[in-house]
């Protein structure tokens, strides 16, 4: 059964008198993988944060999972941002276990997720001494723990080696297959065209279908 996962109507986000998002109308249904490209500063990151209800909109409407309360809806959303959130003084394993504990998951589940992303050998390395690709793998592992219904990816493919790239592609495929949806933002239009069921372009805060 097709369910509407995201629906925005004339969504506007303004900060310090500047209109970052200007009248966004977007609907995303289950099993869709939507790609959004756009130049630097066009509002892509703000759009993803607005869709996750992490930033408040100045005007317009945002409905998630058919109008669910936003604080409840957030728990069904996974976000891989363009900057990792891990604590540099903790190891990769400690970072994931910390998040797993806060989510109420067992240590075994966190260990299994680390294994799936190929970090079992390097999991005792501190995040501050790990490569960007390794940090990304921990974030992918976190999404495997929780299995979100809506996965938001902000330039998540950049800086990944082939294996990590494949892991993320697998996560996207699984999310869409399990009646979820994925919205990914990237500069790489050819990658979006290959991966996504439809692509859009964001220019100066306005969203339009890719020509």
């Amino acid at each position, binding site marked *: 059964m097709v369910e509407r996962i995201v629906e925005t109507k004339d969504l506007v986000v303004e900060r310090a008198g500047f209109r970052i998002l200007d009248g966004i109308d977007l609907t995303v249904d289950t099993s869709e993988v939507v790609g959004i490209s756009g130049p630097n500063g066009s509002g892509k990151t703000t759009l993803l944060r607005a869709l996750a209800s992490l930033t408040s909109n100045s005007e317009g409407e945002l409905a998630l999972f058919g109008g669910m309360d936003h604080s409840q809806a957030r728990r069904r959303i996974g976000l891989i941002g363009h900057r990792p959130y891990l604590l540099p003084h*903790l190891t990769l394993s400690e970072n994931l276990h*910390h998040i797993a*504990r*806060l989510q109420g998951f067992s240590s075994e589940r966190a260990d299994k997720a680390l294994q799936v992303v190929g970090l079992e050998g390097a999991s005792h390395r501190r995040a501050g001494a790990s490569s960007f690709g390794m940090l990304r793998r921990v974030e992918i592992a976190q999404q495997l723990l929780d299995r979100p219904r809506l996965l938001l990816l902000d330039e998540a493919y950049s800086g990944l080696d082939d294996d990590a790239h494949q892991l993320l592609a697998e996560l996207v495929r699984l999310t869409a297959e399990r009646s979820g949806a994925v919205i990914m933002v990237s500069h790489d239009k050819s990658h979006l065209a290959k991966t996504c069921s439809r692509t859009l372009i964001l220019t100066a805060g306005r969203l339009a279908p890719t020509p």
Partner: protein
Amino acid sequence: MRFWSDAIEIARVDLVTEGRAGETFRLVVPFAVVALMIIPMALDLRLSLISEVAFGLYWAFGLLFGLQVALRQLVNDSQERRDMFRLIGVDPAARFVGRSISATVLMIGFLVALGLATVVLFTPEPSSGVWPVLVVATLLAGLGLSELGTIAGEIAAGLGSRTSLASLVIAPLALPILLGASQAVEAVGRETSILPWILLLIACDLALAVTGVALAKPLEEANA
């Protein structure tokens, strides 16, 4: 139940991080002790006079350098991390309580280290009964300053100049805490009741705890 397990987990990770970064005990404490030594020398004060004002110096330096300890948690903070906490559904009030717990542990450790340095450097000769009051005042003041630092960190979160802004928020609001702690110790010497000052400290701690918990969610949303 999840509220307390989340708060304890956040406090635990804060303390592990601090233990590895070592900012409080490898940077703030030594710098505070050096400052404690330098200021009386710079003012050319006699040792006998210094020992009379030792506890005053302790509280003044405790507040001054304690601000650094109270705001230490901002190092672990980032927009990405705040987003992650919101997405996994961590109650902002649990985050406040967790951060206050870790800040209190560090603050009390800092105040104890500073207190020992004060005793070694200035050999104060307090009236009998001062030490238990000093311990109680240190614990209550440590808790209050930590709660205040955590609230100020939340208020200033997301701003570019947050560390300096947070200090500006803390300094004036810390005055009742400093007053309560220092006057509780002085009251023993004057042989007057310490009760009003201890009650002032307890009232400040409670008011800050209630404020922090009540403001946690609105502040999180305002910072979004």
